[in-house]
């Protein structure tokens, strides 16, 4: 089972929930954490994995052999991302814009474009106290997170309960991360910002056809409109984590919640059971 942990709004507690869930389940399950927030991966701060393996992630970008190029301009015309321009007798390539689709090299009539790998990030693998750990790290200055996310997802394995930490927002990195999950936990906070971004996140997971449930973090801080929304939309509210200086203090120091306050372990074990029930019920009634 793959459980994604997403949020819409940033800083609502995705990392807190993902790491607590993983640490609570590890005694009864084979658990893998996949940190797909490749722009700002944070699970490693809490889980402190020993990294044993680093695999660079490449995007294929064009290199034009200008000795043989006839400057016909086909490559620039077919590039949908304006990553290649032909101006008089010069070809300019903008690797940051390139999506690596391969159209330019395939369609070049002179066959003078080769694709060279450009490193855009790295996937790191290791072990954290019995948890299998994978994270993607986007290189500073690189724009495109999805290829790094795809590489992290390649380590998915049916033998594991996979907890996947997702970046904030609702755009392509979020969709890429959530795609293929069995369930999406949406972590929010009970404020107008939390609610506004939660609604967007719910629409996103609905678009992907993935069942979701909600965790309210810092419960008590704002108003009750998030809880009202869950009732109105029929989305299960699975867990409330109260506003607590103890919890905030543990997090600020990088100490796992379920280590500092072991009484929370049962809540996360129960959370996984509820998720499993929702997923299996849905699988037996696929039309819903």
């Amino acid at each position: 089972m793959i459980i994604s942990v997403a949020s819409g709004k940033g800083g609502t507690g995705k990392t807190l929930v993902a790491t607590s869930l993983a640490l609570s389940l590890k005694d009864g399950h084979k658990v893998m954490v996949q940190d797909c927030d490749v722009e700002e991966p944070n699970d490693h701060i809490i889980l402190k994995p020993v990294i044993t393996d680093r695999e660079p992630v490449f995007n294929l970008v064009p290199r034009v052999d200008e000795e043989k190029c006839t400057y016909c301009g086909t490559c620039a015309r077919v590039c949908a991302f304006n990553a290649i321009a032909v101006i008089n007798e010069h070809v300019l390539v903008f690797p940051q814009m390139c999506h690596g689709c391969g159209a330019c090299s395939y369609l070049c009539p002179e066959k003078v474009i080769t694709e060279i790998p450009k490193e855009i990030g790295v996937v790191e693998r290791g072990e954290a106290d019995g948890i299998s750990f994978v994270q993607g790290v986007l290189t500073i200055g690189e724009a495109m997170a999805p290829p790094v996310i795809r590489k992290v997802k390649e380590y998915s394995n049916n033998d594991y309960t996979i907890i996947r930490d997702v970046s904030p927002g609702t755009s392509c990195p979020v969709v890429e991360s959530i795609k293929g999950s069995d369930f999406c936990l949406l972590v929010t906070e009970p404020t107008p910002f939390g609610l506004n971004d939660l609604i967007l996140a719910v629409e996103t997971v609905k678009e992907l056809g993935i069942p979701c449930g909600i965790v309210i973090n810092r419960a008590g801080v704002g108003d009750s409109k998030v809880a009202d929304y869950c009732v109105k939309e029929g989305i299960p509210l699975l867990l409330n984590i109260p506003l607590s200086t103890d919890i905030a203090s543990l997090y600020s120091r990088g100490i796992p919640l379920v280590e500092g306050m072991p009484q929370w372990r049962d809540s996360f074990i129960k959370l996984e059971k509820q998720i499993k029930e929702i997923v299996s019920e849905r699988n037996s009634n696929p039309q819903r």
Partner: protein
Amino acid sequence: MKEIVILSGKGGTGKTSVVGSLAVLVKNKVLVDCDVDAADLHLLLNPETKEDNEFWSGQTAVIDENKCIQCGLCQDICRFHAIKNYKVDPLSCEGCGFCSHICKVEAITMQDNLSGYWFVSDTKYGPLVHARLNIAEENSGKLVAEVRKQARQIAEKQNSDYIISDGPPGIGCPVISSLSGARIALLVTEPTLSGIHDLERVISVCRHFGIPAMVCINKYDINLDNSHQIENFCQKQGVYVIARIPFDTVVTEAIVHGMPVVEYSPESKVTGELQNMWVNVLDFIT
């Protein structure tokens, strides 16, 4: 006209609360929300929308099944695995158009995407340019570029002194698009280990693109050891820490009331520190 972009790396550190307060404190400016996939600034500024524009960007492949001879070439060459059983998954399609160029029977056309909307609104603090990226859309960086372009045009027309821009979290495409060509980046962080980690990465991004950065430590008193660590790190990097905002529940209360905190609680320490912060920004950029 000087553009100040507020970033953080980590989400939820208080970017929008800082920008909402700058909306009150800074005179003669244009406001812009560059967090186009989870925009929140409008929730503090109560905007009245004057202009509502469609944002068309990118394309999606569509296969005409009447023309398709199921040769499978498109499926083989698509690097994004977006075509299965001679059908395009629009969520996986990146719109490169490779398939449409190589289809031998011209069964594939590229259709334009309505990727979102952008708005020009009036607020009592001045004009606000904001946007809404459609759910699960790509091209957030392009929409950011569009709202910034619109904000600059308004700022030029009105002879504004500043553009204040609420940036997205992270360090990827929309952040780079928010940052390029800005006068300075104001980085809002919090004294948690993840806040520090993400601040370090976003400082590197600013340096990579040659944009000077300044740091505001929000909730600095929730972990003083970590706040000292941030100060030491910034000193080593030659980055000024220009504000230390204490933790106070008035910040959340202000959000619940839909108001900038400096207006909701003008006597609070938070407000005093935000006023100092703007004085420090002015010292730096003038």
